[in-house]
């Protein structure tokens, strides 16, 4: 059954360029705990990445996209689409994608659109890009997953809601640094997490976000994809799952039969938090920074509301030739400046100024 | 040498004039100048003003000021060249009289800066800079001064404290000027500890804004001789320009417009720098004072600061500057500043400078700069 539902384009496609971005500021989880629990109790991660006062999804997407283009070494005008997936687009109405497209020099002969599906907005843009290129409609299409995630002060999500993401340029398989053998999506109406229009912060169903939401959808998509492409966890060198915290991706990996080493390079949430639409994709860029030709990678996103997109990838020789052309994911992660809770409230516009 | 002479001057104290409006300030200075010249016979009014539109929501100052000064009907316009507006307005009056088309012209520089304070006032002053390429990045006038000062320090190997002499001198003179905004003496050791405005520019490097107005009446020299006992001749008058933005200059540390206008004015006056008895320079920032001295030929490149350090800018020094306190202590009412400078030089040459008097002053120079020095107006006045 799954085999029929495998999303595989007619023309072979792959990732021809990739780029990460993580802002430099870090809020230790202990700071959130200090503020709201008197420092008692456990914390879900070590620290999270926080965007500076002059950063938003647009500026961060521009930098990630420029990094992807540096590695792809293509003329930006040849990209037929610039798609930005996020749940923190700076405008409610006005595309982030046109600003990004303008800044990277892709305009005007291009598609541009913003995507939204909680934390999987980036991977759905990626699927659309696969289809765009795979159908022959485009030579290249740029997909970006980027967020400056919101967390209500004192809420469990405040520890993890972070800023960062990645850009993946999809193009013909012949130019790929990683082939995309197929994709699979798994979606239901599951109200585990949402943000109503005009609300500043999201709401969530607490532990309801786990078993019937995150685990069910990731498992569903991952297992169906592996079945459809005829592979098992042992066939993959690497895997990356959406990372709302440190625990969930490790547990889902174990449930699916992946060893801790397989997810280690892409497991960034303990050090940068949950970058929402960027989370799975920046996990992939971290893996691409260390992977070898021939390595297979399983990538599964999760977006609340709810659904998962799974991808089967294979690294090519070309990766080694372009990897060094832009800053690595680790370069951004290790470029860190710790801030306190007061600075965080200022950077995240939580101070009442009027 | 022009055929134009000053027959009357007037000025208000520079301060926060909470109870006085823009038009009243202008009127008080005009009234004083008319009294000084013993005439009400004015043919044209030139209003130097920078911020009327931004801070008082009032443009069209020519007609407003003329009307309010009882001169309704006469030709009147506002001249704007940022904080060189006053000097530029004075030059327009000189040109008008020199041309023969206007017999007697009145110049009033007026600025009402305290209608707004804080960030809106800083934004208004920043309109002197390049809006598209400087102020959009948050640059302010103080920031511009700081970029110059930091580079000056880097290239010439000087320290913040090496600029202290300019402010110490200005305050020493301002203390003797009853119309100055700040009349406190400044201790050199306090200079380096001043609060930062735009590092390395501190409160003690930067001239304070204030409300004020100054007025000057000019007419043809032969007529002036009949009207007043001691006319002050406009010996040289020149205005030059440069790029608005520092980044467009090939040589950031050289005030090319200041040099050009000073040279032209000195050629007209037939003098050279060593003939100048006092120099009212545009010390909006200490570094601007140093750069002005260099551009106008009073110091070699990179050496302007030495004049302040070596005490050569005092009233008995080689080249006295800021003799009534300068922008730093008298206060810097932006578009009025250039007219204050003319008033002050005229008083010095008339021997009416009181405690601020420079001994035996015969030739005085005033140089008014706009923003980064993109406009430079130099006037040389003399008495025989």
């Amino acid at each position, binding site marked *: 059954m799954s085999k029929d539902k495998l999303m595989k384009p007619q023309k072979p496609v792959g990732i021809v360029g990739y780029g990460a971005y993580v802002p430099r500021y870090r809020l230790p989880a202990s700071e959130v705990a200090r503020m709201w629990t008197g420092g008692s109790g456990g914390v879900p991660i070590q620290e999270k990445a926080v965007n500076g006062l002059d950063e938003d999804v647009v500026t961060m997407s521009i930098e990630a996209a420029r990094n992807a283009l540096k590695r792809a070494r293509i003329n930006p005008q040849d990209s037929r689409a610039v798609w930005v997936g996020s749940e923190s687009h700076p405008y409610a109405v006005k595309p982030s994608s046109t600003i990004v497209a303008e800044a990277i020099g892709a305009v005007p002969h291009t598609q541009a659109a913003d995507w939204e599906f909680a934390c999987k907005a980036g991977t759905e843009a990626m699927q659309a890009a696969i289809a765009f290129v795979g159908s022959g409609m485009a030579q290249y299409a740029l997909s970006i997953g980027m967020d400056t995630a919101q967390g209500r002060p004192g809420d469990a999500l405040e520890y993890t809601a972070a800023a960062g993401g990645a850009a993946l340029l999809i193009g013909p398989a012949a130019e790929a640094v990683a082939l995309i053998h197929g994709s699979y999506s798994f979606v239901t109406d599951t109200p585990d997490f949402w943000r109503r229009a005009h609300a500043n912060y999201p709401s969530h169903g607490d532990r309801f976000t786990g078993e019937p939401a995150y685990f069910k959808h990731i498992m569903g998509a991952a297992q169906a994809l592996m079945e459809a492409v005829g592979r098992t966890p042992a066939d993959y060198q690497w895997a990356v799952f959406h990372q709302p915290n440190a625990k969930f991706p490790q547990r889902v990996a174990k449930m699916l039969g992946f060893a801790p080493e397989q997810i280690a390079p892409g497991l960034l949430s303990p050090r940068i938090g949950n970058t929402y639409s960027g989370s799975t994709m920046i996990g992939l860029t971290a893996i691409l*920074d260390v992977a070898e030709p021939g390595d297979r990678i399983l990538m599964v996103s999760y977006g609340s509301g709810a659904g998962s997109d799974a991808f089967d990838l294979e690294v090519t020789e070309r990766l080694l030739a372009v990897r060094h052309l832009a800053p690595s994911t680790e370069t951004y992660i290790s470029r860190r400046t710790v801030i306190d809770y007061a600075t965080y409230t200022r950077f995240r516009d939580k101070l009442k100024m009027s | 040498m022009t055929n134009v002479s000053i027959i009357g001057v007037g000025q208000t104290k520079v301060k926060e004039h909470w109870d006085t409006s823009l038009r009243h300030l202008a009127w008080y200075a005009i009234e004083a100048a008319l009294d000084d010249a013993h005439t009400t016979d004015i043919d044209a009014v030139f209003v130097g003003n920078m911020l009327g539109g931004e801070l008082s929501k009032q443009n069209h100052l020519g007609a407003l000021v003329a009307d309010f000064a009882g001169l309704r009907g006469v030709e009147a316009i506002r001249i704007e060249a940022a904080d060189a507006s006053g000097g530029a307005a004075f030059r327009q009056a000189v040109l008008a009289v020199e041309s023969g088309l206007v017999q007697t012209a009145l110049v009033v520089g007026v600025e009402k800066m305290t209608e707004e304070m804080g960030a809106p006032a800083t934004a208004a002053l920043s309109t002197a800079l390049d809006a598209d390429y400087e102020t959009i990045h*948050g640059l302010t006038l103080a920031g511009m001064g700081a970029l110059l000062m930091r580079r000056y320090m880097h290239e010439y190997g000087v320290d913040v404290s090496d600029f202290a002499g300019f402010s110490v001198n200005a305050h020493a003179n301002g203390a003797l000027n009853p119309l100055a905004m700040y009349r406190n003496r400044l201790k050199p050791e306090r200079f380096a500890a001043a609060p930062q405005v735009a590092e390395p520019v501190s409160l003690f490097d930067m001239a304070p804004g204030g409300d004020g107005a100054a007025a000057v009446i000019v007419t043809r020299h032969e007529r002036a001789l009949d009207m007043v006992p001691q006319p002050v001749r406009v010996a040289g008058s020149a205005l030059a320009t440069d790029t608005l933005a520092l980044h467009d200059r090939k040589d950031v540390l050289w005030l090319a417009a200041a040099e050009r206008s000073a040279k032209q004015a000195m050629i007209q006056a037939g003098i050279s720098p060593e003939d100048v008895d006092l120099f009212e320079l545009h010390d909006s920032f200490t570094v601007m004072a140093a750069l002005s001295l260099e551009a106008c030929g009073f110091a070699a490149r990179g050496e302007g600061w030495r004049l302040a350090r070596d005490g050569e800018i005092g009233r008995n020094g080689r080249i006295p500057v800021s003799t009534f306190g300068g922008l730093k202590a008298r206060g810097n009412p932006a578009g009025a500043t250039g007219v204050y400078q003319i008033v002050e030089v005229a008083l010095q040459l008339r021997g009416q400078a009181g405690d601020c008097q420079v001994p035996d002053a015969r030739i005085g120079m005033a140089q008014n700069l706009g923003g980064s020095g993109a406009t430079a107006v130099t006037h040389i006045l003399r008495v025989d």
Partner: protein
Amino acid sequence: MEVSRHWRLQTQRYSLVGETCDTCGVKLFPPRDVCLECEAPAKELYTFTGVGEIFSYTTIYEAPAGFEHTTPYMIALIKLEEGPLVTAQLTDVDQEEVYVGMPVEMVTRKLRTEGEEGVIIYGYKFRPAVETAVQ
């Protein structure tokens, strides 16, 4: 609301697009259509690499309206590797680290916003060069 004036400049602001002089080859930023060196027409577009070094710098403590919520912030004159100076904010840097001659690179950031409801103005800033990964 200033929409068109920022829209008009966005190519320059987003990606440092300037001009090159047809006659003497000098690179110009900001573009001004007439060469600063030889005064010949300069209309051919040129995209700067964004690589340069700090020529001078300051930290602004008293900000103009529109920037008061971002103080203190740093502004520099940047000497681009192609020659011109450009005025821009420094970002992602601590004040103590900055020095004349520091290598920097262009990034696109928010310059300011027009209040809560107005447009967001993006443009160039500079930061210490981030190293590219070396294998």
